[in-house]
């Protein structure tokens, strides 16, 4: 499944709170999500990078095909599973992105 862009009505990507904490992020790196590049701040989780990049659903459920993305954010709900470099069923919210990661969704 290709990443679902945020639906219309919710203009643009979610904001960042960098200014609030006085962040001066290191130069980011890229990972790919189903072949498309995605920017990541070092240390961010794959789930956060996806969501910050405007992708908020990256999996469909096995029975009803319902879209899923982040929900609990702390590794409890297992809604946000992704495949990274062939390793299946990783929780996107718990998995720190690394340069060159190839993430596949669906």
């Amino acid at each position: 499944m290709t990443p679902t862009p945020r639906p219309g009505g919710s203009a643009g990507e979610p904001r960042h709170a960098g200014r609030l904490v006085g962040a001066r992020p290191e130069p980011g790196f890229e990972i790919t999500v189903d072949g498309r590049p995605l920017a990541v701040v070092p240390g961010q989780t794959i789930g956060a990078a996806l969501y910050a990049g405007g992708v908020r659903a990256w999996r469909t459920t096995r029975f009803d095909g319902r879209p899923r993305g982040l929900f609990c954010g702390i590794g409890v709900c297992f809604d946000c599973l992704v495949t990274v470099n062939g390793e299946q069923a990783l929780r996107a919210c718990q998995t720190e992105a690394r340069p060159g990661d190839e993430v596949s969704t669906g």
Partner: protein
Amino acid sequence: MSDAAAGPVADLAVIGAGPAGMAAAVAAAGAGLRVVLIDAGPRLGGQYFRHPPPGFHARRPGALHHGFARFTHLAAELDRHGAEIRLRHRVWAVERGVPAAHSPDRTGTDVPSAAPRTRPGTSAGGALTGPEGPLRTAGGETGPRDMPGTGPAEPALDGCVLVHCLAGDREERREQVAARSLVIATGAHDRVLPFPGWDLPGVFTAGGAQALLKGDLVVAGRTVVVAGSGPFLLPVATGLAAAGARVAAVLEAGRRLAAVPALAAHPARLAEAAGYARRLAWHRIPYLGRHTVIAAHGRDGLTHVTVADLDRDWTPRRRRTIACDALAVGYGFVPQIELATQLGCATRGDGDGGPVVVVDAGMRTSVPGVYAAGEPTGVGGAELAEAEGWIAGRAVAADLGRRVRPAPALAARRDRLAAFAAALSRAYPVRDGWRSWLTGDTLICRCEEVPYARLTEAAALGATDARALKLLARPGMGWCQGRVCGYAVARLAGAEAEPPRRPIAQPIRLGDLAAGAGALGHPLGDDRPSDPAPAPAAGGGADATADPAADRTEDRTADPAAESTTDFAAAPRDGLTADRRRPRRRRTQQERTPDDDDP
């Protein structure tokens, strides 16, 4: 592959590096103990002190926190006292036993020879109000084992706790930590109630929205609604607003915080509440009592929510919609106590909060050598958690014969905070009217996609309790192991939530499980690195998951599956027909692997 060697036996393993675990580790390490602090996350702090990774170079990492200075202090103290910190370690099982290297003549799980310590009362209700008793019973200085003639000549605890971990966020090396004592400081997760559309992307738990913000600096949406019940909604809303989100409303199903009588007796809390009120006003965020979100709408993601005002029982009255692209919703917290129940620690019902671990005034559980601190002993917030952590760490040190000076002020502080937490918990009960939000196709279990209608069918077939409901309709049998829907299912079954039965606390590859079979009932000796051919897991629901054939699949299994294997074996096969709408769910354990979850 065998586990990485456990290494020398530590005096104390602490599971969870939030406020409670950090404080416990500092207290114990400061008293001279060898401490290993274990956490699943990549950074110290747990959920409360979750903060951005170093790559952000945040000059004000505490801008999104209340009391972040406590965290920096605890982190510095850990460093100063030389506590060993193991981050990115997920604990999937804990067991008691005697490492072969430690006591070569003993095999099998072991009960320490040391007599259980004085236990002032069995309920935490009694313990909460008691003095820091056990520390005092030892002549005001040390633990009872140091009193002449009361302890064995052996080391105080000849039983060890073995903590089985999966290290690394994707490689998952198996590691184990052996320790003479264990502090369980595993925190809590959000308690959520199901409602139509709650599985739409854009709907977060309140803690989830905050974790995304505090840990990754990502704001959950442009326009956010915060809903649910309890004071935690306020920091979530004000944090999101400070970070630039438009918070359309904070909807409190119960009463607004200012209306909670217990607040009046706690000036610091009153001031904190007033601070939130000021910030809400500054951002022009309405804070409405007796309101909540009863439905979420959208096709591929959230676009708007239905808001209702509620009667006393939370039955919706007038409704309206609010457009938003994110919803943060939470109805309090569920303590994470499965490691304690794995070890057989006694639990008690904590009123509306579900089961919590019973502890005495030194945070000792009913299992010798095992302590609990923070939310697992009753949800009470970070300050209480930290106080309990200090007490637990000091009690461990005393019980292991270190000199620990009495700290009545600490005990008094804990009592005060616990009393306030209990009053706050009583002020925010979940009312039964939430059931009227449900429709037949509302998912109750997100993992197994079990709609409400299937639970009512199962009930009609005679499933009168949560366990029978689970067997017939499969809620709580998926990846999350019932953590998300467990409370709702219990309430729908008309019962209090029961203590979790998760012999495996984290999904684990079948191969790793088979290799780590010792954690599931086999003598510890079988799990030693020196044993290259561990026996398959014995007993309980683990048999199927540790099937040697499964070993090759490298798939993971979630424990409820393991549990379900036994459950199904015991259940009448006819019971499964409740699932007839989807007959392909009648599958074996082997088929129920995560691959299924990702078509």
